[in-house]
């Protein structure tokens, strides 16, 4: 990534961090200052979804096109990063749960759903480990990642809404009205944007590293 882009990203998130603690108001119904964690928890959860969707799209491109290994490497990189962000989402969520309701874990539908998601993509990585042949590995894990395009939206958006949830109402409720005060929304959006750019930067690095490794393997053979 160009020096300028990196600097811009740094500056952007620096402002977001400042705004999260000094400019945005506190959310109603949250204990003390704990609503500030939202500005990191929500974007990070969102980015994990973006990552898994990216993996699905790259897998479609792999299967539907010329079976270009670059798409396969891109998908695998996206899944790895998706898991990292999912873990961050789980951890920040658990910290916040501790503050709000006294315990780190409640098996609340949203907490359960993110765990199932992580299991799904852990299975993806396990599948890749189990297949030695490159093209087969790419083809079969791509199929699983494409299935993920169906399963993930259910896990992120449908399952959490079933039954009682300790989680507060989603930012945009069924009527489409914005429940969140505009300053909060601004910081939330800005933070999400920053984390998304961060994801794509890390994704590009992981892809490129995979390409170098692949070239090295070819050279050895």
């Amino acid at each position: 990534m160009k020096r300028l882009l990196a600097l811009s990203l740094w500056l952007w998130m620096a402002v977001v961090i400042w705004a999260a603690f000094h400019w945005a108001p506190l959310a109603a119904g949250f204990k003390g200052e704990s609503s500030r964690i939202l500005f990191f928890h929500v974007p990070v959860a969102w980015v994990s979804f973006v990552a898994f969707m990216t993996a699905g799209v790259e897998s479609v491109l792999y299967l539907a096109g010329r079976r270009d290994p670059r798409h396969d490497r891109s998908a695998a990189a996206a899944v790895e990063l998706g898991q990292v962000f999912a873990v961050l989402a789980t951890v920040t969520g658990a910290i916040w749960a501790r503050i709000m309701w006294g315990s780190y874990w409640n098996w609340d539908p949203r907490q359960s759903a993110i765990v199932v998601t992580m299991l799904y993509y852990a299975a993806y990585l396990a599948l890749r480990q189990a297949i030695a042949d490159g093209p087969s590995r790419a083809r079969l894990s791509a199929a699983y990642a494409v299935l993920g395009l169906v399963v993930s939206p259910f896990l992120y958006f449908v399952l959490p809404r079933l039954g009682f949830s300790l989680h507060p109402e989603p930012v945009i409720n069924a009527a489409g009205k914005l429940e969140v005060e505009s300053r909060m929304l601004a910081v939330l959006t800005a933070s999400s944007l920053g984390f998304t750019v961060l994801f794509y930067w890390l994704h590009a690095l992981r892809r490129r590293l995979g390409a170098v490794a692949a070239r090295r393997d070819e050279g050895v053979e």
Partner: protein
Amino acid sequence: MGGPEWVTAVNLIIWTGLVLWISRLDRKIRDLERER
């Protein structure tokens, strides 16, 4: 626990460190790409 200034400072330090570290990774990968 310190006030908002303290938390902000800690976050900024972590963030800065992260960006510097990723930039270094970027440079290393670029070197690896160039040598091939």
